[in-house]
């Protein structure tokens, strides 16, 4: 499992866009709608941010105390990004 967002990078020229209030993740052959939390994680890819920091900042931003629950969701979302060729790992998970 990664412990810092800088261990991930975007793949296939993936981009994040916002139309009205909806975020979209656009990759080479696919496009996914994302909520604000998904967009925030996507936006953090490649940045020097420890996963624990990401989770605690999300916890305080959205006033949701279950940090472990957030961590599990963040990892699930990262897996989704990897499985869909939107992100890739610099070192094995």
């Amino acid at each position, binding site marked *: 499992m990664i412990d810092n967002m800088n261990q991930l990078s975007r793949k296939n*020229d993936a*981009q*994040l*866009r*916002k139309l009205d209030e909806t975020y979209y993740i656009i990759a080479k052959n696919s496009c996914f709608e994302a909520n*604000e939390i998904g*967009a*925030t994680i996507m*936006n*953090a890819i490649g*940045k020097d*941010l420890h996963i624990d*920091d*990401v989770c605690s*900042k*999300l916890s305080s*931003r959205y006033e949701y105390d279950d940090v472990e629950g957030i961590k599990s969701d963040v990892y699930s979302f990262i897996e989704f990004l990897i499985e869909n060729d939107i992100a890739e790992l610099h070192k094995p998970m």
Partner: protein
Amino acid sequence: MIVDINSKIIMSDKYSINFDDILNELKPFPNDIVYLGGSLIEGTISVYSEGMGNCYSDIDVFIIREKSEFDKTEAVYSSATRKTYFVDSLLNGADIEVYSSEFVYSLKNVLNRHKISADVRIANVFENVKGVENDLFLINTFLNRLYYSICIYNHETYSSLKSGMSFRKFLKIKDAELTASIENLIPDVKGNLEVGQIDVALYCMREAYLKMMNFILVSEDIFVDRTKWIPLKFKNLCNEKSRYSYLWDEYLQLFRLGTESEKECYAVVESNMATVKKAMEDVLMKGLAL
């Protein structure tokens, strides 16, 4: 994508369509002129445009329509001169640009009547063209696309229109416009060099240089409707007429600055593309930063 003019067919990895199928989809009026244009067509029919068009380019469909029918044509974008609509089922999503015949024939008449003279301001040449009010950019685009086009409906009227349109006279007007523009830019370059504003001087010099290349292309009866095509067309011109090659060498110095080789330039452009996207996203998504 391949445009085979002789077989009247357009082929890509996603579809294949012949000209009659395009007409069946468009259902033109009997007096419409329908022709195909855009970078892919231009790259196919003009030696100076070789290399234009890529897998992201589309084929543009143009219709010249009598005013009464033009006024009734429904479109997404509308002006007195031009209407644009889209047909998703055609050519993998085609833009259809409809021009009013009133504009087209009024442009033809104005060009035919126009006498090149130092007394006439360029800005006023086209004041009598219905619907455009001296929009030189629109007129240049319209003429460029008509000049490099393939007719698919009403061939006789199309040929008569093209042979009667004074393309060369328009290029003379364009020549004069470019000359004035370059003459304005050069003192700007000089002035900025003198006060040490090197970046401004470099920017202005690049602009002036591109305009000079455009000027030479125009003097060779080559239309340019977008600045991005100037280097491509100029390089093709140099391949045909080596007397201009020294200008291409200097272009490489001015625009590639340390990235003269194709490989180096490719890498810089690729890296710049990523930077542009990232910088845009950083600003647009700054609210998401943790």
